[in-house]
């Protein structure tokens, strides 16, 4: 490991709009090209706070469960961690390579085979083509899909999909892993496998697991953040 992964959220607020067509947003973005980004504290019509004043930090080796009902802001936190969006207010500091476990269908193309999708998904997670070539057997073996690896993934079941995606993710050199509701999909045997690899391999990494199932979180995590309506409880 090159350095220790560290994450800090300081008084993070995130505003979203409910409107479908964002008439203002493009104009605001274009104006901000010239003037620099401004932040508005007040809510305009149809806007709401998805996160309100969230602060926490995470250090290496921590497995953090994000627990809360639907729409409470869990996925927004993952988006901020993955750097796909930015906070309206406050600061998010993430040091380390982030690997989200990409949900079914996103990083994979249904017409491509398992092997082809390993390259696809692996490079999206920041692995080099050479590293993937080197690791491809390990990835296939861990997924347990060797017999199906040359089949287009559109013929996979959702469990097989997940196995492949998870297997690619754990073989990436990321320091921070984001698992969104996915561990519930696999069968008992695969969950056991995930459990043991997380215990043995991920001593240095930070893992985030999202779920509204408290049992799964208690099984996997050593710290649980309970979030409701954008506020930490």
């Amino acid at each position, binding site marked *: 490991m090159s350095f220790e992964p560290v994450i800090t959220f300081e008084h993070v607020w995130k505003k979203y709009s409910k409107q479908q067509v964002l008439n203002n947003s*493009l104009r605001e973005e274009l104006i901000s090209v010239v003037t620099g980004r401004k932040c508005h504290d007040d809510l305009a019509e149809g806007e709401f706070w998805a996160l309100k004043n969230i602060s926490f930090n995470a250090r290496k080796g921590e497995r953090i469960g994000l627990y809360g009902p639907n729409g409470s802001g869990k996925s927004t936190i993952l988006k901020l961690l993955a750097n*796909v969006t930015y906070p309206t207010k406050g600061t998010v500091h993430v040091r380390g390579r*982030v690997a989200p476990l990409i949900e079914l269908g996103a990083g994979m193309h249904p*017409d491509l085979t398992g092997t082809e999708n390993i390259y696809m998904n692996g490079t999206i997670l920041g692995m080099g083509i050479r590293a993937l070539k080197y690791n491809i057997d390990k990835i296939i073996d861990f997924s347990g899909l060797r017999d199906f690896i040359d089949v287009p993934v559109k013929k996979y079941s959702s469990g097989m999909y997940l196995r492949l995606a998870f297997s690619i993710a754990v073989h990436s050199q990321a320091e921070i892993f984001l698992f969104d509701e996915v561990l519930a999909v696999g069968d008992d045997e695969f969950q056991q496998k995930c459990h043991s690899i997380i215990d043995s391999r991920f001593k240095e990494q930070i893992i985030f697991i999202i779920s509204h199932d408290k049992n799964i979180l208690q099984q996997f995590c050593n710290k649980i953040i309970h979030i409701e309506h954008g506020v930490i409880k």
Partner: protein
Amino acid sequence: MIRRLYAYKDLLLVFIWREFLIRYKQTAIGVLWAILQPVSLMLLFTFIFGVVLQITQKDYPYTLFYFAGVLPWTFFAGSANFAVTSLSGNFNLVTKIYFPREIIPLSGVAINLIDYLIGLVFYFLLLLVYRIPLTWNILWLIPLLIMLVMYTTSISLLLSALNVYYRDVKLVTAFLIQFLFFATPVIYSIDAVDNRWKYLLFLNPLTFIVENMRRVSIEGREVVLWQMGIELVGIVALYLIIYRIFIRIERAFADVI
């Protein structure tokens, strides 16, 4: 842009390779499509304008005249068409993980460039078949090609980004591409155009590029330097502006897509 993309070069390669695989998977004749598309357009135009309407285009061989126009045009139109829905169609990727977003529309430009280069080989064969005397001026094709790629990249980035905000863009683009087809001398020669309209047409960089691609290869003449200078400055300025805007609004894509 190059500095930004270097760290993600493997991802770009895989995206190009993926598009290539997807495109020719479950097709009967595979990569031959790269040739067949421009060739069928060329034959169509030759038939309609050459045989049916009997319009003479300068004194070039018909097939050569149309192929020289169709090639850069299909590259531009193919890339722009791909780009429009490229970001909005990959929304589940865009909302999950960060990578420079331009990689997706750029991979479309890249695969169309591959097709273009394959078509260019065919074009050279045609030049040989018609015994067109080749001169050193044909090397002008290289800067012209670079200008074409740069312009196409700018338009692709712009369309892909705008379609994230307004899906109207997809609908407008279909018309826009048709319009540009007629505003570009693909099926006619700029020499046949009245002076009043000529200057207007040259506002479209494709006009200059397509017209000169014929001129340097079929006629063996050189480009007019001051004209090229103006077009080049325009294309580079457009690219810089669009790329700057793209980078600026890229971070908001996941929120609005």
